[in-house]
């Protein structure tokens, strides 16, 4: 193999595969992170306004766009309805359920007085 050594044909080519980038998953951790539901709540408080009577469909369209843009930020690759279904599924997890309970309790009048 001396002759062809200069061409490097005989050298073993090392095949190293880069580990695949971990797939982004829409799981309860992502949902509970700052970009998840906490952001949704904040945005709702600051930006979600309705016109009310006579503007039902316009209001609904605004509401749906609100959720769609939030989900697009959180998990850009899934379509709106698919992402909704995934989030709904997460809602059955223990962690999510206790978080949901806490958010609801926050809204209750007596919770502040303790």
């Amino acid at each position, binding site marked *: 193999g001396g002759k062809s050594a200069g061409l490097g044909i005989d050298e073993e080519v090392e095949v190293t595969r880069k580990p695949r980038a971990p797939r982004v998953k829409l799981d309860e951790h992502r949902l509970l992170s700052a970009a998840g539901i906490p952001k949704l709540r904040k945005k709702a408080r600051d930006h979600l306004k309705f016109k009310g009577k006579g503007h039902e469909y316009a209001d609904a369209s605004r509401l749906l766009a609100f959720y769609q843009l939030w989900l697009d930020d959180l998990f850009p690759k899934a379509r*709106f309805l698919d992402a909704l279904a995934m989030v709904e599924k997460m809602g059955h997890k223990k962690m999510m359920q206790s978080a949901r309970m806490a958010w609801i309790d926050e809204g209750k009048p007596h919770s502040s007085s303790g």
Partner: protein
Amino acid sequence: ADGKRDVVDPEVRAYVSSLVTALGGSGADEDGRYVLGDDALACLRDLKKWLKLYDEKANRLDVARCLAESNLVGGDLLQILAAWPENATDDRLKSKIALACLELLIPLTWPIDKNQKEMTVNHHRHVPYLEIAQLGYKRSIINFDGARILHTAVRCALPSMAEAMGDRSTRDEGIIKLLLYFVRNIAMIAPPPNVQYEGDEADISRSATIDAFDYQDILHLLLTVSSTIGEDFNTQDVVVLDILFYLIKGVDIEKLFLDEKAADNSKMDELVRLRKKEAAMLRGYQNNAPTRHNRFGAMAWLQREDAKRTTISGQAAVTDSTRGLAKMDATKKFKPPRRALKGDNGPMDFDTPVPLSVQATKHLRSFVEEFLDSGFNPLFNHIRKAIDREAERVLEYHPRQFFYLISWFLEAERVRRRNKKSSKGQKNAAQQEVDSYSLVASVLNQEMFVTLNRAMDFSFENKSWQDLSAAMKCFTQILLTVQDMSESPLEDDQEIAENILNRIFYEETTHDRVANITRSYKDQGFGYLDASTELSHNYLRILEQYSKQNLDLQVRSRRRVRKKKKAARAAGQDEADDNIVDESEGEDAARAERTSHERKFDFKRFAARFVSQGCVDTFVTFTAYYNDLRPAQLKRAHRFFYRVAFKQEMSVMLFRVDIIALFYKMIKGPEGLDSQSSSYKEWDDFVKQILKRCTRKIQERPELVVEMLFSKINSTAHYLEYGYEKQTVTTK
């Protein structure tokens, strides 16, 4: 054969084809008539042996394949049967030969079971070929020129059928069975799904089958056997059930009972309706279509927070932000894994609609009417007993056919009555003569309810969804029939109906079952979804009506009972335990008031079972098909949501983003409901109401913004709806 490697053992092929050749043939010197070979009967018997001892024993399909390739059916068997003239029925040799032909036709037309685990390579090789071959058999049998093949088959069995049931030999019974299975096979053969039949579909369609059955007196045969079952026939009931199933499954009953002129009109109407639907669809597209050519290249961006931008191409996005968002969504490619629907598309599928020709409609309608008049009660009563007894001849699939057929015929009876009523009303209202419901009484008795309930429980537990679907359809039609009965002018009918309703009303296990089924839909397919939503809709509706039943109706019914008792007492056959004999009118009224109050409460409690997320989800899945639903189906969904939101006052259950998105899309599109359609208005009103409540609720209770994403458990929903915890009984 022709030099290429053969798929069948050449020796087998040689034997079989020599037998086929020896059977007979047509020659020029006989004017093209078919002439039997010298030993034709022996040849037929040998062929039968080959099928039995080679194909069946060794579990192969080689002989069947050879016979299909050699055109035995069209070229020989049918020719031989056709050459058996009516006046030679007594000729013993000829009738023996005819019977031998029939004996060969049965295995050749027998349905091929493809789901067996023991299917071999050999099966996979032959089955597609044989399936096509069977279509050819059916075509040549029902369209044979110059002779009625099916009728000839009946003639083979006539002597045996003429014997009294008790006097028949085993051979007689066998021959009758042979005939009925032959008819069953012919009725059953249909192009398998995903196979393009190369011949003319019209030759083997349902219409062609029905026309042939009518012309060749098979419908008569079916009527005779089913109306005399229990007297002249006994074990044949399940085969008749089989035949009826393949004859009528998927046939639209409303269309069946339209008269010819109305049918013409309805075809025109249908054309007009479809054109309108198409126009509405195009209108929908045109609203969103670009106004310039496709390379115009407009580009828009959506300004998002954090100085982020999303770019969207196409002019649509420039003008309308909703469409921009839709476009943004449509460009995404990721699809989460999804499970396929589990519906049935095999031969037992009854959800695929089957169109009929005008001629076939006429034949089938008269058959159905005659069957209702004479065959319905004896046949279904007989089979119900066989099922209850778990008779050996009852196979796993028979209950499904049984329940499906009952539902089908009950609906047919209801439509027939409605038509009769309206046509009589036009002619002469005074001379109206009323028929009682005794024609279908055999499926309205207590035994039937027991069988049906047991079947529903069993199939629900065992997840046999198609069986459950058939049983639900049956239950729905029984409910509707009972409701019609309660409005009958005949007192006897009213009384029976009232008793049945009364029993159903207080049967908690049935309430639970219906609610459980509705709650637990999960990719069982559209047919199942349709059946379960239809059942729960009608069940709720009829029980609600019963709970509201007005007072004087109850007073009247009590009075009726009292009158009867009095009459019985007068006749001297009083019983010790009657307790309502001596009440006065006033007491009747008071008692009726109390009952109706209790019933209202009971109903409210019962209806609350349907306000679960599971039931809502099932109806949401159903409603998502809105563009393919008939007005009655849309109404069903509308009533359900209306009940949840306004009657039960739990609109919170509908406040979930995907549900709101669905409702919004139905009205505002793209691809929304046709705004010209009859359903649009009530949906528009309803959706507007829901949206109004939803936005108001979000402002009232900001925590709903999060809960809009999720299914809610009842306590959460109750808090969100009313603002306080549900009061539960606590004693501390």
